[in-house]
Structure formats: C-alpha cells, structure tokens
C-alpha cells in the first residue's frame, strides 16, 4: 500500500500543508526543527491513532489552535481509501473513512499500516524493559487489533491486584499466611481469609488474561527472531548475530524454557503463571506488590555473545533498533501479503557509509518509503525518487 496524499491542518508546527506522494522513495530534507518529523508523525498517527513521540495528544495540536486535522489517501491494490482524523486534546478523536463518520475511531486502524523507525527507537536497545514490552505489544496490535483490548484489560487487572496487595498487606502478613484456615473452607470467616480469597480471584484473572498476552508475545518473538537476525546481518555485514530472547518473570524452570525458545500451549502458559504466583505469594504479600506476569517481563537483546545494552556501540545499537523495525516490516508484509509504508526518520546520519548503502539496498523493493534527513547528502544516491524541502512549515517539491 502507499499514501498518495497527505494533508494536515493545525497539526504540530503546520498551519496547513498538502503533500502529493508517490510509490517508491520520498525524501524530506530540511534543517533541524523545520517540521520533517512532524509530517511523518502525522502519517504514523493515521496508522496507529497515536504518536511515536508523545503519549497524549495535546502537543499534536498547533499551539493556540483548538483542533488538528490529518487527512490521508491510502491506495491498496489500486483502491483508494480516505481517512480523515480530527484531534482535539483531552477529547476523543473523530474519524471519517471515505467521508462517512465512524462511531468508533479505532475502526480506521488497518486502513493504513506503517512501520516507523525514529531516533527515539534507540531506547529499544538502551532503555527500560517497558520499552521492549511496548514494542512487542504494539506489534501484536498492528497484526491483530483485538490485542489492544486484551492489553487494556491486563493493565487494569495488574492495577487492581497491586492495589489489593498494597491494602491487604498489613492484614495478610499478620495472619492468613500460616495457620489460617484454607480460604475455601471458611466463607468470609475473617478479614484475612477474605483478602486471600480475593487475591485468588485476581490471580485467576491475571493468569487468564496475562496468559493470553504472554502466549501471543512468545509466538510473535518466535516469528520475529529469524527476521531480526537477517535484517541485522544485512545492515551490518558483521559476523555477530543479533538475537532477542524472552526474559520472563515466571519461576526459574519455566523462565529457562521460555528463554530457550519454547512456546507452551495457551492453557499451559496460564498454568505456569498460576504456579509462579503461588510460589511468590509470601513475597508478594510481604512487599505489597505483584512480582509475576507479562508486565514484569523483558526481552534481552544480544549481539553475538554480548548483551546489546551496555556493550554495543552507538552505531551498533542504532542498527539493532533499525533491524527490529525492519524485521517488523517484513513480518507485517508477510501477514498482509502487502507492503506497509516504511518511514525512516533521521536514520542515515548515524550510520557509516557501508551501512547506509546496504540499508538503501534493503529498502529498494518496498512499495513506499518515506525518509527524512537534515543533510540531503547523508541519503545514498542510490535512493532516487521525489525530494521535498521542508522549511518553516512549508513543503516544496522537486524531483531529484
């Protein structure tokens, strides 16, 4: 698929801008702060209804304006769909698809698919586990939107369960742990018993929903792993292999099996979570916080023998993050039987000449690639195509 037309109004620094795009490579060139990323952010927003830079929508609306609009024409298999979004900070978005208003804006998800690499992605390698969890979960949602609901439910369960552990901690650590009657023998016998009882209920919830999420992540990682190694190998032309290993918060034996690449059946995953929860019960009660579940997991990225975090050079980390996005691209391409739109924001400046050229080779067959660069010369000559100059909120075209 490709974006044929993008139009923004009161979005970020733009009062208004229209951009006619074609398949192939498009490069946006301009000095720092002139609005290149703002444009690709708008395209990403149409695909995901969220920004890759900020968690809430307020900064997307031009300072002083009330609402932003983004309109994009997306062509897939020769058929064009027009998505129109109205972003008002602090309120629900409004969305139109081919001129008709949608009751649920998220129904536009899937019309446009993008894979976006941005400098912020360095955090995938260098940042907290939460960055890597979000990477996996976002990709799950891109593949199947229903995962957004599962993830939302899971977050709520974790919050409820943590609140319970925190509030029940004094009661529970006083009694109930030892000596107390088994909860199912004594209906609401006392405060401690009923707190334990409630904890069991939330454990079941956590294992059921968290089990689905964990199972989906493991399968995703299994699919992604070979594509990651391939993409990294192609960009770097180095011998050390890039790999991503799931580090789970389950009990030791289970975690070791998952790290070895095993993907148990969903029911089994659920059982493993329950078992692990049982083993840390005393600890959780003592500390008043949940210790097991997909929200405590991580993905360990390694280059050859060494962990990427803390060891990889800047350029290697950059290439690793890029390889994660390129692997996602290839995975989605395979799922859809169609190319998502590839967006590379500021990717070239940080790569050596060899890596630039090899990246250019890799993306040559993509249906549409949108590239931004502050310095036009950083983009390899092999990437011909349209070139736009971005300056002061205006975009001027010039075919290179």
């Amino acid at each position, binding site marked *: 698929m490709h974006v044929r037309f993008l139009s923004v109004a009161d979005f970020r620094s733009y009062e208004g801008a229209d951009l006619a795009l074609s398949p192939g490579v498009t490069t946006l060139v301009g000095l720092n702060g002139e609005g290149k990323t703002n444009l690709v952010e708008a395209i990403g927003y149409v695909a995901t209804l969220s920004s890759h830079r900020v968690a809430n929508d307020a900064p997307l609306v031009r300072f002083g304006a009330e609402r932003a609009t983004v309109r994009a024409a997306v062509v897939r298999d020769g058929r064009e769909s027009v998505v129109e979004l109205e972003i008002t900070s602090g309120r629900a978005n409004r969305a139109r698809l081919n001129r008709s208003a949608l009751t649920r804006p998220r129904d536009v998800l899937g019309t446009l698919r993008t894979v976006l690499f941005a400098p912020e992605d360095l955090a995938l390698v260098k940042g907290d586990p939460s960055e890597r969890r979000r990477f996996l979960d976002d990709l799950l949602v891109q593949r199947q939107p*229903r995962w957004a609901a599962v993830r939302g439910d899971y977050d709520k369960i974790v919050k*409820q369960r943590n*609140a*319970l552990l925190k509030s029940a901690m004094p009661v529970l650590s006083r009694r109930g742990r030892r000596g107390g009657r088994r909860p199912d*023998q004594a209906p609401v016998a006392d405060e401690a018993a009923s707190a334990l009882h409630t904890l069991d209920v939330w454990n079941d919830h956590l294992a059921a929903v968290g089990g689905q999420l964990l199972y989906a992540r493991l399968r995703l990682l299994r699919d992604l792993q070979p594509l990651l190694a391939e993409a990294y190998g192609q960009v770097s032309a180095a011998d050390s292999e890039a790999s991503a290993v799931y580090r789970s918060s389950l009990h030791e034996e289970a975690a070791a099996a998952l790290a070895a690449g095993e993907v148990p059946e969903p029911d089994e995953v659920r059982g493993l979570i329950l078992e692990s929860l049982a083993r840390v019960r005393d600890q959780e009660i003592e500390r008043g916080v949940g210790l097991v579940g997909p929200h405590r997991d991580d993905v360990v990225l390694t280059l050859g023998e060494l962990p990427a975090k803390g060891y990889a050079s800047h350029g290697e980390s950059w290439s690793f993050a890029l390889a994660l996005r390129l692997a996602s691209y290839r995975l989605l391409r395979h799922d859809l039987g169609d190319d998502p739109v590839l967006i590379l924001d500021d990717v070239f400046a940080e790569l050596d000449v060899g890596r630039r050229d090899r990246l250019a080779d890799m993306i040559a067959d993509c249906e549409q690639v949108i590239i931004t660069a502050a310095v036009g010369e950083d983009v390899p000559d092999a990437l011909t195509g349209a070139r736009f100059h971005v300056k002061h909120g205006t975009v001027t075209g010039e075919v290179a």
Partner: protein
Amino acid sequence: MYEGVVQDLIDELGRLPGVGPKSAQRLAFHLLQADAADVERLTAAITEVKAKVRFCEICGNVAEGQTCRICNDPRRDGSAICVVEEPKDVVAVERTREFRGRYHVLGGAISPLDGIGPDSLRFTELMSRLASGEVREVIIATDPNLEGEATAAYLARLLRSFEDVKVTRLASGLPVGGDLEYADEVTLGRAFEGRKTLT
C-alpha cells in the same frame, strides 16, 4: 475558598459521586440564587427519602419499610436468587419480566483500587439466606466488566460449599438489533465463548 457556610455547601456537594470541585461550585451558586421555595422542595425530598426509604433487611434493595416490595411478595419464587451489584440492576432485570425469583443486592463490586473488598459488600447476608436451605439456584448477574467478573468469581468460590445449589452466570452476548460487523471484538469474543448448541 469561600466563607464558612458557602464553602461547607460546596464541600458537601463535592462529596457526591460524579461531582467534581468545579461542578460543586456551580451547583452551590445555583442553589444560592434559586427561589427559596425550590430549595425548600429539594431539601424536603432529601429529608423524606432518608426518613422513609431504606435498604431491605433481606436483600439490600431499596425499600420503604423494613423489607422491599419483592421480598414481601409471596408469589415470588424463593428458590432462585439473582445477585446484582446495585438496586438499579434489580430494576433492569425486573423490566425483562423473565425472572420470578428474588434478589440479592451486593452494594457494589470488588474493586481494590476503590477500596472495595468483600467485607464492604453484602456477602455474609447472602450466605445466611442460603443457610435456610430453600434456595436451589443462584444467578450471578454482576456487570460484565473486570470488577463484575472478579465479584462473580469470588462468589462462585464462596458458593462451592453449598453443593446442592446450582450457580449460573448471565451470558454476555451481542446486542439485539445490532449488526455483527459492528460489534466490538470483546463482545464478539465473549459471545463466541458463550455460544449455544442448536442441534
């Protein structure tokens, strides 16, 4: 901050559910400017409802006496109890005219985030009702959200000790009159799980 009584009124209104500080202020000034007779009627209604209406000692539904209309009605089937979160849910189930049994109102759902645990809900009262042995079926009709499901699961655990009581849960399914293609994934997923055999 306003002076004494005005601020007291704002504070009191602000404690009502769904009323934030801004709305509390707006309501307070509305009342200050309203006709004395209008305010009189409002306070009378509040006083009266507090004096006359209370919660049924048996089921927790709203009642004008010690027990509610449904508990007092000898034609209702005492062998089935439908457990709901709030009195408004009784009204909703009653509208269906499907159910001829009695109710039990828990007074909310388990939500640790809001400080609501089993001890602040009317579970003990339900257990005593079951102890009489008359009840054959408990229908759990808590809300189909996470807290409602947790409450249902908790109750199901409690009820394990009553071996001859059948425990059922309302099916959550597709809205009638809706289009399949417009149902969200969660609803559709639940409807799949709860599917029925036709042949």
